[in-house]
């Protein structure tokens, strides 16, 4: 980002500038490249010559010129003339021309989260075209080489083109669901990162929060948009307390709650409370409500576990998923005791799919430990440690196994 240019200004401008270009020229893929080039030009020119009076208008002008240059360069003479003739009624805007309203951001999100794309492609394209991150930044955040990410993005754009996706799509709850899911994935990718050399990944959390705020502002009556933002706020509020000085994970029950971010919690609780009373119930609101119950408890022991268990039961009905059942079992163990919780796991075990996953073994180990069966608990912790692909989780689980058999 250019020195002296507030990053928020540039990044916030990206979807507006891109929206203006797509409206003018169509051709999402070309427009997206042109906007990236304009951002690069800004990073060279602005620090030297100062910020233009209308940064967005400046970016639209420069990006438009790039697009027209490209038409000229790559088209055969006749095609070029046709294209230019078709463009003629559209004047390249002056630097003072304003750009479209915030609605373009939503249209772009819908395009980037097109159902024809795989989840990683939706995520990458959203971060670039709406978030304004460079390919190198996105590649760094997902720990893949820049060439890999560049391919992923250009393939995604090609797919959108092939699918004949239109820019203006009606807002349906199904499509909005995909957008919210993509933002949730971005958030999780950032949140699950540990500290230290991978701190850059925390930027993904901030980016997801920023985009979730934008969606929430554009769709103030949507309960799930509010629920997702609340969930992110209430989860991210725990960031400082979730790892210790060595970067090891600290379980929720042992976290120093004075290090939780009170302002984020207040905002999240307020958001989810008002969504729950005024909008249609959805999974993000329920997850946010669960996070809010945790956030409002002074300690693990004072947590309203029956309330959390009830919320998980509701979530399980609304969006059945083995991971939800596992979480519900943990809450039931706290509310009613480990034996009732272990019973909840039985149908999952019969199904068999979840038992390949380390979380199943970790929850089972925890419940067996609570029930006093330390031998079986130790074995389950060790099995969980073998199955996780996360180094900090393996350290934690191995530590639990050693702790109870020692």
């Amino acid at each position: 980002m250019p020195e002296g240019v507030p990053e928020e200004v540039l990044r916030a401008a990206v979807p507006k500038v891109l929206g203006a270009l797509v409206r003018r020229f169509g051709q999402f893929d070309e427009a997206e490249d042109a906007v990236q080039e304009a951002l690069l030009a800004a990073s060279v020119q602005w620090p030297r010559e100062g910020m233009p009076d209308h940064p967005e208008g400046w970016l639209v002008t420069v990006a438009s010129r790039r697009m027209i240059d490209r038409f000229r360069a790559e088209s055969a003479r006749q095609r070029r003339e046709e294209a230019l003739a078709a463009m003629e009624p559209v004047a390249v805007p002056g630097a003072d021309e304003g750009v479209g309203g915030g609605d373009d951001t939503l249209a772009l999100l819908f395009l980037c989260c097109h159902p024809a794309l795989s989840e990683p492609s939706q995520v990458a394209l959203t971060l670039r075209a709406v978030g304004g991150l460079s390919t190198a930044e996105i590649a760094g955040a997902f720990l893949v080489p820049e060439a890999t990410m560049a391919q992923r993005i250009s393939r995604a754009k090609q797919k959108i083109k092939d699918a004949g996706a239109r820019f203006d799509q009606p807002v349906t709850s199904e499509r909005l669901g995909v957008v919210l899911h993509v933002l949730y994935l971005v958030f999780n990718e950032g949140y699950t990162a540990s500290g230290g050399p991978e701190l850059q990944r925390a930027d993904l959390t901030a980016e997801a929060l920023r985009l979730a705020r934008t969606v929430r502002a554009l769709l103030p009556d949507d309960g799930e948009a509010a629920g997702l933002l609340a969930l992110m706020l209430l989860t991210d509020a725990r960031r400082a307390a979730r790892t210790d000085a060595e970067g090891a994970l600290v379980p929720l029950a042992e976290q120093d709650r004075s290090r939780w971010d009170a302002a984020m919690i207040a905002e999240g609780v307020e958001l989810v409370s008002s969504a729950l009373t005024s909008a249609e119930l959805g999974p993000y609101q329920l997850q946010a409500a669960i996070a809010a119950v945790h956030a409002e408890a002074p300690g693990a022991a004072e947590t309203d576990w029956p309330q959390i268990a009830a919320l998980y039961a509701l979530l399980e009905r609304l969006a059945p998923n083995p991971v939800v059942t596992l979480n519900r079992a943990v809450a039931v163990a706290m509310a009613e005791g480990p034996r009732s919780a272990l019973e909840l796991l039985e149908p999952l075990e019969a199904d068999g799919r979840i038992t390949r996953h380390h979380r199943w073994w970790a929850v089972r180990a925890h419940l067996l430990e609570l029930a006093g069966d330390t031998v079986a608990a130790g074995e389950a912790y060790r099995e969980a440690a073998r199955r996780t692909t996360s180094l900090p989780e393996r350290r934690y689980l191995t530590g639990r196994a050693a702790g109870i058999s020692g």
Partner: protein
Amino acid sequence: MIYNNAAALDELPDAELETIMDEVDALMEELQASGELVGGQALADAATARTVRVRGGVPAVTDGPFAESKEQLAGYLIVDCETEERAVEIATRWPDARYWAMEVRPIMHTSGTEM
């Protein structure tokens, strides 16, 4: 991870070897184009391996691989796939899978969730 038997590989008829190379080229191109290929290397023959052990602070270096078997780790490929099934599918199409074996394993990472 690509496992093969270098001696047996050398004995394959030229035409068959060529088919194998073409298949590998095509698959690599596909993975590059899809943005799934993160990296990878072919490893030199296990005959070139040197195995290092330190016992009681004393290093001992011996010629030859750690595991004595005809099948050796011949190379590896790092792919970033949406699902484990997709990684297995790629392994299925790698020619060494027909003769010897491919092993698919997740990569450990340094992130995690608190429990």
